[in-house]
């Protein structure tokens, strides 16, 4: 269940894409072997984002193809093959660090869609649907908080990742709380006179991320 929410978020927020730049960052310190890169990546993300060896080598091959890393020509492919960053790679990394991720257009959020559907569906209590999601999110937050409680003092990277997750989940709970209140107030009011209003400007400009 957790991985469902997690994977969607990971891909949406460019988590998978940034492996490329995380590897460039590690190589900017010193030339390294593939296996070493995997271990260091995991250690520095508090072991929250595991990486398999295949992902590491595929990414390295692409980086080499793009001219961002070089490898030892003579060594066979495998754990003993060393990689180093090129000048182009260093420039790519510096550019990536300062480029904000695309947060301008709202993501197509599955939870928002579920609530929008629940509001219109006859025979469905939207407040009950909201509560089911709220409970699940708070349960997740409890697990992250316990992780912070147990290990946050010893592992700085982990503490940073855990904070980010707790704030992300918290913002979803706050949205649910706000939606809950808004729907309750709306139910007490008579329905407004139906008319075709022009679409808000933001919808026209931004579009939805797919």
């Amino acid at each position, binding site marked *: 269940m*957790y*991985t469902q929410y*997690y994977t969607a978020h990971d891909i949406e927020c460019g988590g998978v894409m940034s492996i490329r730049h995380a590897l460039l960052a590690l190589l900017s310190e010193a030339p390294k072997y593939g296996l070493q890169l995997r271990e260091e990546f995991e250690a520095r993300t508090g*072991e*929250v*984002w*595991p*990486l*398999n060896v295949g992902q590491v080598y595929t990414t390295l091959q692409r980086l080499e193809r793009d001219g961002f890393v070089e490898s030892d020509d003579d060594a066979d492919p495998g754990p003993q093959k060393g990689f180093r960053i090129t000048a182009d790679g260093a420039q790519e990394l510096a550019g990536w660090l300062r480029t904000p991720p695309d947060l301008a257009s709202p993501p197509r959020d599955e939870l928002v869609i579920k609530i929008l559907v629940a509001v219109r569906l006859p025979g469905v209590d939207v*407040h009950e649907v909201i*509560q089911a999601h*709220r*409970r699940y*999110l*708070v*349960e*997740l*937050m*409890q*697990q*992250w*908080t*316990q*992780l912070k*409680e*147990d*290990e946050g003092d010893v592992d700085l990277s982990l503490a940073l990742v855990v904070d980010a997750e*707790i704030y992300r*989940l*918290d913002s979803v*709970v*706050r949205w649910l*709380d706000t939606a*809950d*209140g808004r729907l309750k107030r709306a139910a007490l009011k008579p329905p407004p006179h139906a008319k075709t209003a022009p679409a808000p400007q933001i919808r026209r400009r931004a579009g939805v991320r797919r």
Partner: protein
Amino acid sequence: MTGVLEMRAVSKTYLDGADEVHALRDVDLTVEPGKMVAVMGPSGSGKSTLLTIAGALETPTAGDVLIAGHSLAAMSRDDRARLRRRAIGYVFQDFNLLPGLTAAENVALPLELDGLSAGKARAAGLRALDELGLADRAARFPDQLSGGERQRVAIARAVVGDRRLVLADEPTGALDTDTGEAVMRLILTACKAGVGAVVVTHDAQLASWADRVVFIRDGRVVDRTAPRPGPDSLLAGEAAR
């Protein structure tokens, strides 16, 4: 196991003019020793009423409350007041420290009220402050302390002596995130020493420190979290390797 707090079918109805207001309806809640339970709900959901009834500050219209196995309904007013002083500690959002007393005097006050000699009460107060890292603040007045320090003094006051139950109402409300986190760690430490705690809040981050979260809406308990499975379940990759 007997809970330090057991609320059994508790209801509370107020009269607002001719209207009956149902602040709590048929609430069951048990808090075991060593556990923290968060009660989460929006404002007006009844969570503060729940806390004042759990703390024997108000009596329910129906149902019963047991503190450490003792039924409040069966107790005389005096016995109830004694139990309240001895067994229950309160932490409020705005700290509620007495401005004319030093930190140590604030912490010692409930023990003195309970008939302990001034010397003994003061010694116990200093010990509680020391445990919360506030030994060097003992002689200061509340207005000479930071917000975080004031809340730590309030927690020392809530756990001093032989307290069994700590009741907290939005205890980190006015504090920044770091200080709020420190406050939650202190309440958790008290729980690990055997105290049971109820924290009422609208804040999911705060609630996530609890062993169990109870959701309250319109005076009713509508939902509860499952027991915590432990943080290992988060490391999604472990299974994939």
